[in-house]
């Protein structure tokens, strides 16, 4: 396959940036999208041009490090991570536009690399159960209905890649935040800090400059792990009931 790549290049956070066009020749259908970029980068290096920088690590769809907004969709045409996207999803002669995630809270670092530490700060605001190591009850002391554990697991699968923010027309992080709020709101272990958690995580999400949700459902449709927007509804419930009943003034 021969492809035309329109890639966002930006030297650093302060650079204005712009698109550059490259031709990728001899692309095999079995290549992953990132392997296609690897080959491009080797060619650029041999020509003495700065290779295209992009985030990636595990390349098996679980670490959440890879990003890329491909042809107008986060992680490209399939509902998967970019590292699991293969070139057989494209056709010969196609032009592929590759952009970084775009959000105020995800500033571009270089080329296609963005800073997603806002997600870490949302978790730091309350995405945990405050138990110290040791001194916890036996694992089987509190039975948890299988259906509840399964629902919590559905939410916990979030890989924190930020595709929800990238897909959302408002660059909202509600799917990400709600997945963690939901996981811990569902489980008995999360009950003690349930109200404070919802309040603090929502406040941090806002402070980071993410947009508000308009319930378009784009996040759910693009989430590589299929996290459902029922989690957003649950977070809303948690938040509204927390603000009227918690002890936090």
């Amino acid at each position, binding site marked *: 396959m021969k492809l035309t790549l329109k890639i966002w290049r930006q030297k650093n956070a302060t650079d204005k940036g712009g698109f550059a066009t490259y031709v990728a020749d001899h692309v095999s259908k079995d290549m992953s999208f990132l392997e296609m970029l690897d080959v491009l980068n080797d060619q650029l290096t041999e020509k003495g041009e*700065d*290779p295209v920088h992009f985030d990636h690590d595990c390349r098996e769809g679980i670490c959440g490090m890879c990003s890329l907004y491909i042809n107008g969709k986060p992680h490209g045409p399939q509902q998967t991570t970019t590292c699991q996207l293969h070139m057989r999803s494209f056709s010969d002669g196609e032009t592929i536009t590759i952009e970084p995630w775009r959000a105020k809270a995800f500033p571009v*670092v270089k080329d296609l690399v963005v800073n997603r530490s806002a997600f870490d700060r949302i978790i730091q*605001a309350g995405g945990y159960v405050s138990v110290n190591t040791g001194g916890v009850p036996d694992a089987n002391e509190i039975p948890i209905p299988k259906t509840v*554990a399964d629902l919590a697991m559905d939410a916990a699968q979030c890989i924190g890649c930020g595709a929800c923010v990238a897909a959302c027309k408002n660059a909202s992080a509600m799917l990400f935040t709600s997945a963690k709020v939901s996981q811990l709101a569902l489980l008995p272990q999360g009950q003690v800090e349930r109200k404070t958690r919802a309040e603090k995580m929502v406040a941090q999400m806002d402070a980071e400059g993410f947009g508000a949700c308009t319930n378009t459902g784009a996040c759910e449709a693009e989430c590589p792990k299929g996290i459902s927007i029922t989690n957003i509804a649950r977070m809303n419930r948690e938040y509204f009931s927390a603000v009227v009943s918690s002890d936090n003034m």
Partner: protein
Amino acid sequence: MILDSKIPAGPLAEKWTKHKFSSKLVNPANKRKYDVIVVGTGLAGASAAASLAELGYNVKAFCFQDSPRRAHSIAAQGGINAAKNYQNDGDSIYRLFYDTIKGGDYRAREGNVYRLAEVSVKIIDQCVAQGVPFAREYGGLLANRSFGGAQVSRTFYARGQTGQQLLLGAYSALSRQVANGKVKLFPRTEMMDVVVIDGQAKGIVTRNLITGAVETHAAHAVLLCTGGYGNVFFLSTNAMGSNVTAAWRAHKRGAFFANPCFTQIHPTCIPVSGDHQSKLTLMSESLRNDGRVWVPATQEIAEKLRKGQIKANDIKEEDRDYFLERKYPSFGNLVPRDVASRNAKYVCDEGRGVNETGEAVFLDFRDAIKRDTRKIIEQKYGNLFDMYKQITGEDPYEMPMMIYPAVHYTMGGLWVDYNLMTTVPGLYALGEANFSEHGANRLGASALMQGLADGYFVIPYTVGDYLAQLAPTKVDENHPEFARAKEEVKQGIERLLKINGNKPVDYFHKRLGKIMWDKCGMARTEVGLKEAKADIQALKKEFWTNVKVLGTNEELNQTLEKANRVADFLELGELMVDDALNRNESCGGHFREEYQTPDGEALRDDENFAYVAAWKYLGEGKEEELVKEELVFENVKLTQRSYK
């Protein structure tokens, strides 16, 4: 030099309890006066950083990823072992201990392994308390499965994403301490060197991957939780960024490197599809519970298959060789990883491989679907089948999967004593970065257990014992050693940037990987290893004259990052070969073709090789010195593993 493992004397079951009691304690009011550096934020790093911060120490945590949550522990699929015996099927701490020692082919320390089994039960409690959503039965209690051929069901799991859930649990504990101000987080920061003052580790040198700033950080103790070095093979199931740099630089500063040749090759990975391949994807070994491994009985049929003249489903039952079931009737497809991997290699070497490259065997679910219905198989393995289809474009419900072994885990690593301290006082290694618990072969679902055991339940005691012996005064970052180490790191970077050769970094990494895979992979020979050593030396020379690293240090420069790591892999590769050459026996993940039983099984030499081979770095271009730590077995009897 004699290596002291510091295993406490006394009965096996009392060693850890006694040791904890005899360890010195740091006064609670003094804990805030001690600084601890944790490098790496995987299971071991995140759990250690969180636990130490909870105790009151000031922790600095470093990772090269953009977030601690992305460490490669996240990719572990299958589960975590713990001797809970919730299933009433005869499990116990002793049995987990015994299975681990035996599975490791008797190349691990009894004391360490027993402690691992002992604390395993507490890990599950801790994770559940953090909100890890483990799989449950309808009654609400935790579910277990049998894993990797274990005879008891002791594996806890969270769908096919156990590593992810455990890491997110540890990450949440870490995040809590970041919010409390007890942990300072340094993402996108790579450790470049250890600062050793008067023989003690007192800090590290790092490179900020965004700005390129080379900085020093002082502390009373340094914990390396930096994972394994499987990427020396270029193609492995490790993440692209997984590297040996932190461990290797520590090695060059005096930490011994133990058993580097012990690498685990995982049998169920998706085969290589072409030269462009950048990494290999593992599929949970639970697939072997229902899938049957086979190749065509003859070369001729395999040939036709490879040319696409026939399809797998056209091959008649009598023309299929279910080689694991044939050779190991009692364990069948569930033989340990090393045995399954090696046998796949054998049949492919015989020309019976089933894909275009000739390096793949079938893993067939046809009979399981017939027996249990497609729906049940879908429930059990749906996500794995989807993943396979995503990558290969083939539907495993219709066609048998193709699998081939791939490098997955490295049992070797920095030598540590019972306290997880390396040969440099104050420098610790946890998790896959150390060599300890798994001997020559790791059992399935034990990596997660070890990482968390080290971080949550071992290091908080042992590091305290060390710190209690130091004065609670700040480590002086103005000590000339810091400046010297920093300068050396800068020079190393300069050196790479100045070469301006003709070949990209990956070119060298791929070549190194091929040498290692061909000659220091699943089966090794003296001749091959000697060739490998020469090849690596030549490659190393070429690397330092012909690698092309563009750009500058003062920016995000992924090529420079890679070059740094590959430079260390090149040195490590040679040591692995040395170690494999030295170990004139076959055991676990190390198989020397010269040492096998008449029917092709690994032949251990307990008389001469029941030791840990720890290597001491003596300087640039010099052969490393071998230091032996004899293994003492007081509780288990060394037997030949048999899975017939």
